[in-house]
């Protein structure tokens, strides 16, 4: 089953060098997910994969939450590879498309996100403190989900869309 967003991701990864320079329709989903998140048997991220290049844990104290995030993303990927009718959640695709704010996001998006967090800095760079604050907000938001939606939905230390939403609602004192 062709999924349009997979084509978009493949084109993006070919442009960026994570996939070989073939026509995108000749790239399999397995190759695409391997380019996104390449791990060994112990789910440790390998070098030169999209996720590791863009989303790094900057605070050793958050390593456990980071590993949880990685393993939950891998869960959804493996579920899809087992059964191609499985629907990968949108939040996984947001990482694959670099929609989550990180150090390699556009500087304007990073700046707006850091201002919302109240941790803006001159270089608009991420830090352990920023990731910890982000994790706290994400945890608070996800805890409000009904229990069936919390499963395999870890809190994150990166600027996922729900974190931005929570911050914007906070800024107008809602929620």
């Amino acid at each position: 089953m062709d999924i349009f967003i997979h084509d978009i991701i493949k084109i993006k990864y070919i442009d960026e060098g994570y996939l070989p320079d073939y026509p995108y329709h000749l790239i399999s989903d397995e190759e695409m997910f391997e380019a996104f998140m390449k791990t060994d048997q112990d789910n440790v991220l390998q070098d030169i994969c999209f996720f590791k290049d863009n989303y790094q844990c900057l605070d050793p104290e958050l390593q456990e939450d980071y590993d949880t995030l990685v393993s939950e993303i891998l869960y959804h990927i493996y579920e899809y590879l087992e059964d191609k009718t499985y629907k990968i959640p949108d939040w996984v695709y947001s990482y694959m498309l670099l929609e989550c704010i990180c150090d390699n996001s556009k500087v304007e998006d990073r700046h707006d996100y850091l201002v919302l967090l109240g941790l803006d800095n001159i270089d608009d760079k991420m830090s352990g403190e920023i990731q910890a604050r982000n994790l706290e907000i994400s945890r608070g938001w996800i805890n409000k989900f009904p229990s069936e939606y919390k499963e395999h939905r870890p809190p994150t230390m990166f600027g996922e869309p729900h974190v931005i939403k929570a911050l914007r609602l906070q800024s107008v004192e809602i929620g």
Partner: protein
Amino acid sequence: MKLLNVDKNTTLSELSKRIGRSNLNKLLNANKLDRTPKIGQAFVDLCNNIYQTTPEVSSDEKVKLLNTLTDNSDIFEEVSLTSENGWKLVSQLRTIPGKVHVPDTVELADSADMLGNGISISSTIYSQAVSSIRSTGRVDSNIFETSGSSPSIAIASSGSGATSTVFDSFHVPWGDITLYSTGSGETVDFPVYPEELSDQAVANYTQMPDMLYQYEPWQIYTSSGPRQCNINFKFHRDMWSGDHRDGSANNLVRFCEAQCYPNYNGSAVNAPTSTLYIVGKPWITGVITSVSPVWSGPIGLDGFYLYCEMELQFTEVASQALSYSTIRNKSVVG
């Protein structure tokens, strides 16, 4: 031949956007690079590997390499002055540290991040570079130093009587405003229009005395005039030749002030009359009763003020008998 700036943080997608996706593989092949997301870091690693594995480049080899670079003087200069490691890179990849070699089949517009100006190196510099390499193994950077021989920039000359001045760039209405004096028969030009022209026509009446029971006094005409004009000029001492030390502005002020004094010739006292012409038409002819220059800063090179506001007060001495009809029929201007 062109060389394109690349640093260790350059990504493959950035390079692709810079040179075009269709040219990317050609550039990677020319620089012995594989497709990888962090292409800048990969290039740095490749360069470091070349530094460690390539032997020193001999002087003869350097001359041979320079002979291939004579079509682009900027590349010739950069290569000539590069380090020993840089020469190794030139010998292996035809490029220098921090730049990738752009193959000739890839056409890119010139930009600040590219070398390859297409200007041939001068034979003098080429000869000096080659002899420097043969004698010392390196190129002396002084042969590229051109500041000593750079052409001097001719700043517009100034001084009284100069025909070309900075004020040629401005519209200075020379000849439009002139003042003629009968005292010396001289005419001087003002470099500016009057800021203000105030004119005045007056009539003098007296009242019939000892009139009783009149609802208003009878006015008896006695005389008219004199017409009086106040004219204000604002000018700068640089406005004549561009050099305020030429004395032209001061000459103008003295000329005006002199109109307030007569010439004595024995017992004869000859007071001058003056005529102010505006665009060739006489505005007023009469005696100048007051000349009030007000000097203000900045201070010029000769230690005197540069800016002057000067007021002239004219009292008309009409050149013809004035009546209702002559005044009524005067031109609108003048």
